[in-house]
């Protein structure tokens, strides 16, 4: 329908073909196209080629870097796995050592405390014995002191004048008879 409208709109009186341009137009158009393509090939192609090469190199570099990074990551991962293994064994060793030390400290502490308790018991027993003996001695001394005081008081009370004179006379008689 549209084509028919277009064909119907063409002026049949025109000399050039409805499809092909005029020869001159083809020549000029062709030359212009050649000049443009030539210029593009001469001036644009090297720059485009250079940009493509640079991009290719950049991409290649990125690929290489990625490969290197991946290799490094693989290496690091291996190291980490190895280290993790070492850490686990070190942890186990440290825990075992700590357990052994704790057991030794506990055992030593028990022995020390047992010895200290025994020593304290012995000292307490000795102090109790000493205190008992001291109390006994003090009691005996106090009894002796009280007895002596009571004896002195009783003797003083019993020493009347007659007894005093008898003692003096007895002394004189004894001394006089001594030699």
């Amino acid at each position, binding site marked *: 329908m549209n084509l028919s409208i277009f064909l119907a709109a063409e002026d049949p009186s025109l000399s050039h073909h409805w499809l092909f341009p005029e020869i001159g137009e083809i020549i000029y158009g062709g030359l212009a196209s050649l000049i443009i393509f030539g210029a593009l090939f001469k001036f644009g192609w090297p720059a485009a080629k250079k940009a493509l090469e640079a991009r290719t190199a950049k991409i290649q570099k990125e690929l290489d870097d990625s490969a290197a990074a991946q290799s490094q990551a693989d290496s690091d991962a291996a190291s980490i796995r190895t280290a993790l293994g070492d850490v686990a064994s070190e942890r186990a060793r440290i825990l075992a050592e700590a357990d052994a030390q704790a057991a030794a400290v506990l055992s030593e502490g028990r022995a020390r405390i047992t010895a200290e308790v025994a020593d304290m018991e012995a000292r307490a027993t000795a102090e109790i014995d000493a205190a008992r003996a001291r109390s006994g001695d003090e009691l005996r001394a106090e*009894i*002796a002191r009280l*007895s*002596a005081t009571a*004896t*002195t008081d009783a*003797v*003083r009370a019993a*020493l009347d*004048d007659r*007894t*005093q*004179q008898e*003692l*003096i*006379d*007895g*002394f*004189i*008689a*004894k*001394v*006089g008879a*001594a*030699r």
Partner: protein
Amino acid sequence: MSVQQINAYVTAMFEIAVANDALATVEDEMFRLARAYETNEALRGSLGDTSLPIERRQKIVEQLLGGKAHNVTVQLASMLVGTGHISLLPQVADALVKRASSEKQLEVAEVRTAVALSDAQKTRLIDALAKATGKRVNLKVVVDPSVIGGVVATVGDEVIDDSVRTRLDQVKARL
């Protein structure tokens, strides 16, 4: 105070007592005054109190001995107070007694009893001590209540102790 100074006092007192023909009396009274000075704290305090004037302290001596002791004894005791050497009274009196006894060739016999002795007891005691020690003795009796009963006699270096106090001490030691 040196021994020489004590001896100086003793020599002076001895000469004064001899000059007054009162040696026996003076040495006996000085001995008894010395024992009273030793045992009586109030007397010691009064006679040794330097805050009191010397005249006041000498007055105390005169009041204490006046009428009871020989005048020479009072003057000699007052002299010790006046020179500020009353604290030497026991040593001076003992040395004077020793000097006087030595002069009469007697040995000082200090006898301590709880009660005073009668003259008869003193005479018998002098005889008994002379018999026991073989020495003639100048008896000096000190009434000392701490003896409690009995007698403690000291003749020279010899001590004859038959006191109740010593017997009680032995009982205490045994207890």
